[in-house]
């Protein structure tokens, strides 16, 4: 039984990775990838450049940006620095030279960012979204922003969400029918699909007092869900760090418990397989009446989790056992376990498997097939900029793919961008291993 599954995983993976790379359509992507690839094995340089990318949008003009780049590059010790950056280490790296570097690095950072961020705002992005739709790809829009530290900022984020929902619903109404994207085994799927961050919706997130943040977030979640209901849109609550999880679930369950939302809108949550208590969390969600006893079943997005370093560092500094698995393969194994659990529960929920890991992805498809599921019963999700090739492969296999598409300005998008860059070049990550390892190694079962 398992052997057959493994064989099928292998076949699927080959099929998924055989797909033509789409990078030719976006030369910047190819270029960016090559650059990132060259950081492989040079951790100091990588850290220097990422810190620069992080700080660059906050600089005052080209000279200041050049001075930052110089400072970061000069800190790189004992590693080969690319030719193009070497002049910055010399004594001539002053005045005009700095400004020149500053001028050049501005567009370079913007280009890099553009790979991952689809536009400044939703109007800016609708053309891209429509092109994706025509190409057979659904989207989940994400609004990048600064973190929320005040009431006014929470309110501003709320307004952006509401505005985005309206624009999206409006634009998407005109798009041509795409049977695979427009319906699944439970019925119609909302086209306008917005991912929101609970921590942006309230400035009162306090891990020691989750009720406080939950109550405040609920005040804004409520009208957002009403609006989504009116517009027929989908609202997905992204999962963030462990400190915010309890608040998020409290707020979401609290609002959805209201009779008013039993019919609609379509909603979704995220489960992070890198958490040691991921299995229990999924069970809690599957047995939560306010989430699952709804006319429209909730979408449950399974991810590994984007805050592994953060969680490990915080726990280490405070002397706690980290809430995340210590080993990558434990996260992978948990991911497969929960994939199965979700697919088994597909009669009551909408499973969405979000990963760029060929093995994790192929496993989900193979398992669905083994269960005799239909293709439309499973949604596969990838991130813009990281999963573009994979998205093509998924579509070719006849599965619905949804591309998580962030929009927002650069300063605000930096935290997101740096996290994605790190993911792209992290030694543990699939994306980098892909460059070095054979398919056999990559597809080895995690257990």
């Amino acid at each position, binding site marked *: 039984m398992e052997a057959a599954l493994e064989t099928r995983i292998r076949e699927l993976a080959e099929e998924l990775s055989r797909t033509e790379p789409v990078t030719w359509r976006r030369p910047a992507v190819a270029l960016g990838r090559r650059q990132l690839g060259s950081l492989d094995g040079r951790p100091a340089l990588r850290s220097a450049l990422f810190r620069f990318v992080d700080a660059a949008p906050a600089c005052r003009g080209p000279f200041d940006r050049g001075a930052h780049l110089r400072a970061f590059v000069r800190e790189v010790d004992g590693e080969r620095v690319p030719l193009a950056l070497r002049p910055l280490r010399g004594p001539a790296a002053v005045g005009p030279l700095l400004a020149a570097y500053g001028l050049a690095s501005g567009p370079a950072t913007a280009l890099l960012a553009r790979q991952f961020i689809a536009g400044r705002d939703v109007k800016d992005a609708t053309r891209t979204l429509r092109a994706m739709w025509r190409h057979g790809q659904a989207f989940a829009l994400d609004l990048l922003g600064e973190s929320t530290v005040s009431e006014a900022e929470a309110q501003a984020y709320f307004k952006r969400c509401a505005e985005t929902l309206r624009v999206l619903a409006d634009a998407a109404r005109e798009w041509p029918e795409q049977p695979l994207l427009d319906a699944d085994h439970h019925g119609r799927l909302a086209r306008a699909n917005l991912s929101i961050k609970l921590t942006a919706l309230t400035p009162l997130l306090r891990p020691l007092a989750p009720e406080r943040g939950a109550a405040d977030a609920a005040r804004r979640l409520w009208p957002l869900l009403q609006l989504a209901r009116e517009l027929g849109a989908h609202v997905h609550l992204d999962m963030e760090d462990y400190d915010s999880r309890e608040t998020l679930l409290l707020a979401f369950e609290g609002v959805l418990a209201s009779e008013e939302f039993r019919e609609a809108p379509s909603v979704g949550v995220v489960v992070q397989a890198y958490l040691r208590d991921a299995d229990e969390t999924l069970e809690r969600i599957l047995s939560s009446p306010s989430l699952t006893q709804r006319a429209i079943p909730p979408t449950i997005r399974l991810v590994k989790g984007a805050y592994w370093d953060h969680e490990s560092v915080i726990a280490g500094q405070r*002397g706690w056992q980290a809430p995340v698995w210590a080993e990558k393969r434990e996260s992978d194994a948990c991911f497969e376990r929960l994939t199965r659990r979700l697919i088994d529960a597909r009669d009551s929920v909408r499973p969405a498997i979000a990963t760029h890991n060929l093995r994790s992805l192929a496993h989900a498809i193979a398992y669905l097939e083994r269960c005799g599921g239909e293709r439309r019963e499973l949604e596969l999700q990838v991130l813009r900029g990281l999963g573009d090739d994979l998205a093509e492969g998924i579509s070719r296999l006849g599965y619905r793919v949804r591309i998580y598409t962030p929009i927002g300005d650069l300063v605000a998008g930096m935290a997101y961008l740096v996290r994605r860059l790190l993911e792209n070049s992290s030694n543990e990550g699939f994306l980098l291993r892909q460059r070095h390892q054979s398919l056999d190694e990559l597809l080895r079962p995690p257990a």
Partner: protein
Amino acid sequence: MNEDFRNHPLLELRLPEVREELLGAMAALDRELPLRPATIVGGTESRGDGERSTDPCDPAREVATLEWAGIDAAERALELALAARWPLRPPEKRVAVLERAAGRLAERRHRMTALIVREVGKPWEDADAEVCEAIDFLRYYALSARRLHDDLIQVPGERNELRLRPRGPAAVISPWNFPLSIPLGMTSAALVMGSPVLFKPAEQSPACGWEIARLLLAAGVDQDALAYLPAGGDLGRWLVAEPRIATIAFTGSVAVGLEIQRRAHESDGQRQIKRIVAELGGKNCVLVDSDVDLDEAVPAIVRSAYGYGGQKCSAAARTLVHQGVADRFAERLSGAVEILRVGPADDFATEVPALIDPGAVSKFNRYAELCTGAELARAQPAAGPQYVSPLLVDAGRLPDDTPVVREEIFGPLLTLERVRDMDQAIGRVRDLPQALTAGIFSRQPDRIDELIERLPTGVVYVDRAITGAIVGRQPFGGNGLSGTGARAAGPSYLRHFADEQVISTNVVRHGVVL
């Protein structure tokens, strides 16, 4: 040393079951209140009443009822200390006592945390961190006492040695804001180096002090080597002036610290130059450069300035902000200050508790009044006599010579100043006589280095909150008027509590090296 030391783990308060446990400990403590701390001299407890400590968040709640120790008790304690055998005990025994005390404290951490919350109105998370710090002090000093070795140059025929000797009785005079960890740190440092201790706690926290004395005595400190003397300032003055006291370990305000310096040698009959180990107040500044990441800086600064109502010597009092980001910064910081939750310390949602006593409230109000018309933001106070409204003030609208930017307020008041650039900010920091902690928010490594070099403070924090020093990781203490330079929980702290003795022995006999 560093490999063998682990900081005691904080409680994981984000887990509901852990919070429940603390609430249980609080309920149990409340049933025992008021506690009846005793004066302890030579192991004998004597009790009385007439004095009390109360819960700052609910002054009707009595935490302790007691009688102040008199000068006669201190006199008796000093005589016992002078005759005590503690300095002769083998160092390993003294070390073992500290380790035992650490273990006992770790077992009783929930109760101690609850007591800190009650007696000085410190919110849970800070109170828990304080208990961990206290445990860490004990273990860190035990470990460092074992490792104090100094190698001298040796040549044939000569054996050279440097030994550390006990100095004689130490007076520990401690503040209320860290009623457990600071006095326990000072007391255990003196004890482990062989000095008997006369410990006078702050008037506001006698119950915490009593727990310290009992903990150490139960862990095996000789009864004549530790006296517990809860009392007011007069007893403190007596200890400072007393010629037979060898060391004064004091943590508190700059004013009292300077007075101690003046008074320490006034009386006749001095037998030694007293060693004064003083950790004093600050007027701590945070520099915010133009390339700051406000998402990081704003929450960190709020925590530094308003955590425990600003009643930490390391608390942020001034922010100096590059004009290029000043408007955004002021706007975001204001928004964050407005939503601060003021309330009782035992509520897990509380960020700013009541101030320690009515005196602190009137002092705060005096400064707040000077700021009328310059407020940028304030948070709602809670109902109760010792709550105040946390304030963010635009220093640009205050007169140039305002005391608000020079004096330590020790309350939830932060000022914001726009500066042309970081040079101007550094100039203002250097103008201050206090030099305890400082913070830098900047993202350009060479610029950060340059700023650090020009900052005079004892501790510099980069891109993080400026409170919450951790044992062994951020040895704590100030320069300038902020202290005598010892760094608590640093590698050289214990040396301040010992005398050095150099022994050189000729090992040549009859022309032969034997």
